[in-house]
């Protein structure tokens, strides 16, 4: 063995040994959670709808088109293992202050796309048609729900999927604030 190959030999041996140690230390007994897979299921913004549920309640629906990039079928459903959070625009942190849920479950076959809606329900006194501030009240409500939100994120704890529902909205300018 040439002398200049000795460091290489040692390097390889240590590489194998250290990798083995790391593997053995990490695999048994202390299972570490899989990292969140944020690329398996992706979503793109489609549109938003403010729906009056009744005289005192409304819900904001944000529609998305989700794509399954995997070779496995996927069922997107609201449940105990699925958590939808808001990613705040200010610093990118997550928040559950605003309740968000999947409007309905969706079956997403492998390599297929489907449309889903996230639902942000809230108490809202729907303004009267005759209200001169009718539009601004609606805009104000929508802004209140969306302006501070950068995106919605669904964490599927079962499959470790992280689905980001990106922003597609802007702040709605209030008519009363516009110059006449």
């Amino acid at each position: 063995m040439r002398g200049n190959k000795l460091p290489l030999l040692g390097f390889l041996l240590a590489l194998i040994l250290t990798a083995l140690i790391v593997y053995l230390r990490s695999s048994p007994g202390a299972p570490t959670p899989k990292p969140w897979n944020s690329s398996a299921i992706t979503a793109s913004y489609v549109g938003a709808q403010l729906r009056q549920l009744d005289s005192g309640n409304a819900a904001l629906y944000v529609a998305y088109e989700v794509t399954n990039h995997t070779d496995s079928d996927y069922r997107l459903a609201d449940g105990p293992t699925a958590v939808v959070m808001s990613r705040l625009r200010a610093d990118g942190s997550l928040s559950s202050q605003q309740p968000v849920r999947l409007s309905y479950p969706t079956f997403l076959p492998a390599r297929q796309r489907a449309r889903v809606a996230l639902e942000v329900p809230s108490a809202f006194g729907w303004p009267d048609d005759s209200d001169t501030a009718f539009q601004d009240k609606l805009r104000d409500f929508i802004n209140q729900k969306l302006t501070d939100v950068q995106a919605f994120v669904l964490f599927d704890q079962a499959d470790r999927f992280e689905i980001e529902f990106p922003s597609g909205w802007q702040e709605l300018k209030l008519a009363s604030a516009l110059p006449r």
Partner: protein
Amino acid sequence: MEGLAYVDLGPDNGAILIDLAEGGLGFHSVAPVSLEQSVLVKFKLPKASGLIEGYAEVAWLDESGKGGGLRFVELKPEQREQIGVWAGTVAAEAEATGVEAGSNLAEAENASVKSESIVEPELVQAPADLATQPASEEAAAAISADVANADRGANAIQRIQTENALPSAKPSEEQAIAAAKPATPGGEPAVGKPSKPASNAAGKTYPPAGVPSDGISSRVHSGIVAASASETSVPASPIALSADSAAAGGGPRVKQMPPSPAVNSVSSQSQDRGTAPPAAVSNDEGTQRIASFSLQSQVPARKREMWEAQGKEPIPNVEENPASQALKIGIGAAAGAVLVLAIVAGVPSLRTRVLATTNAKSAATPLESGIREFQVEVADVNNRRWILKSGGVAGSPFVDTSSRRNAQPAAAPARKNAAQPEGPSEADAAIAEPAPEIKQPKTASPAELVLARPLKGAPVGSQAQNVPPSIFDGITPPIGSLAENLPVTGPNVPGPAPVQPGTPGGNLQAAVLVKRVAPVYPSAAIKDGVRGEVRVKATIGKDGVPTNLTAVSGDPRLVQAALDAIRQWRYRPATLEGQAIETTTTVTVAFQAN
């Protein structure tokens, strides 16, 4: 002798110093020289302060005309004495170390000098123990590594420092030309060839350096390493003493060996072979006379390959110090471990940093200016739909002030016309018949609220299906499906009317309130602080107009106000199999003073 000792032989020629005595020196030149040629010589003795400089003439030459001896013809006496003192010191040190005098590299180099009276030295491998003998500080001379290369003008010379004192005879008072004289085939001594072996102080014979027979040089000053040296050379790092070509018959037998970095022996280069086979010198008595030199630690791989490419014996691998090997392995192991740990520990943190950077970057983006115009569809419980558009984005057409001024009034009356019909017939027109065409401004207003109109000619009673398709059709739940499950909240707002269909069964669609007018709070009731709910039973006709209003409960002071308001309400009638039917319902109107 430190460094190369060159002999200046003119502008196009030069030589290296092979041997040195008070009377002259031995050399090997690059190009042939001629006898009696006068040359200027310059060299420096070890530990000497100045150069030895003087003129000499070629005293003898070998057959090639490149090797021979120079006789000093013009040399300062003090310099001549300096040479003598130096040679004597070398010899004395050699004696002190017990090494046989007379053995020097020059002898070895010139061992081919043949004389019947000289026992041919045999070059053998030097024993290892001799290699560890104490070194002479001056022995150092270096050995020319590649005379053959020098022949080719390549000047590939190896410097080898001697560790041992070179045995040498004491300097003679006689002038000597310490030039080695190669033997001639047939054993005939050449001119200037020494006729007998020199002997050292111990009386042992040794192959002398070439001594001209003309008597100019009577003694050989051994210990003078003629071949100078450079640091590296051809695979000649192992130092061996080689004599001239063994083919010379009477010359010393040279064992040509591959260079081995671990070998301590005296070596020089055969001028004919151009390589430096390691060897040692032994005299006729078998006594090995070794000049030990410091060694190259390792033969460079390229040199090794060159050596082996010449078809010579492969160079044995060097056995490294186990500690050195362990150190190298340890260094490599540490590097590998660091790499693995860096990967294990660094990748997650790197990913975290990337995500944090991405988040921070996206968070720093105020609003997605690149997205298309933001629109929000607004739908009330009666499935009337509007479009709320964003605006005010720089560069968008919606910032145009004039269009905004023009568009705003255009949208508001349209909504008013559609949402606030004054009577049942107008309400029907707003719901069942297409409203007057709303002029869409060329550039929409950011505050624009566009009413989604029912389709023209749609049958009455199915207005909900006449709403233009929306992207949310099929995405969001149907109108009313959620509201019925949610509690009614908010003051002064009646909940959705629970319409009871008159006929059960079939494809039944409940009546839906499409127009609500807030009740007028009686001023007397406000003054008295009266509040509460009024429940009114009503019949929703096929035209959607509530009739047969009957107060079921509530403060009497509030009942009339509630009835007056409900009469203005309009419903989308319930349908059964697509046909409008009459239904009854109970409406609750809440009064709550602010």
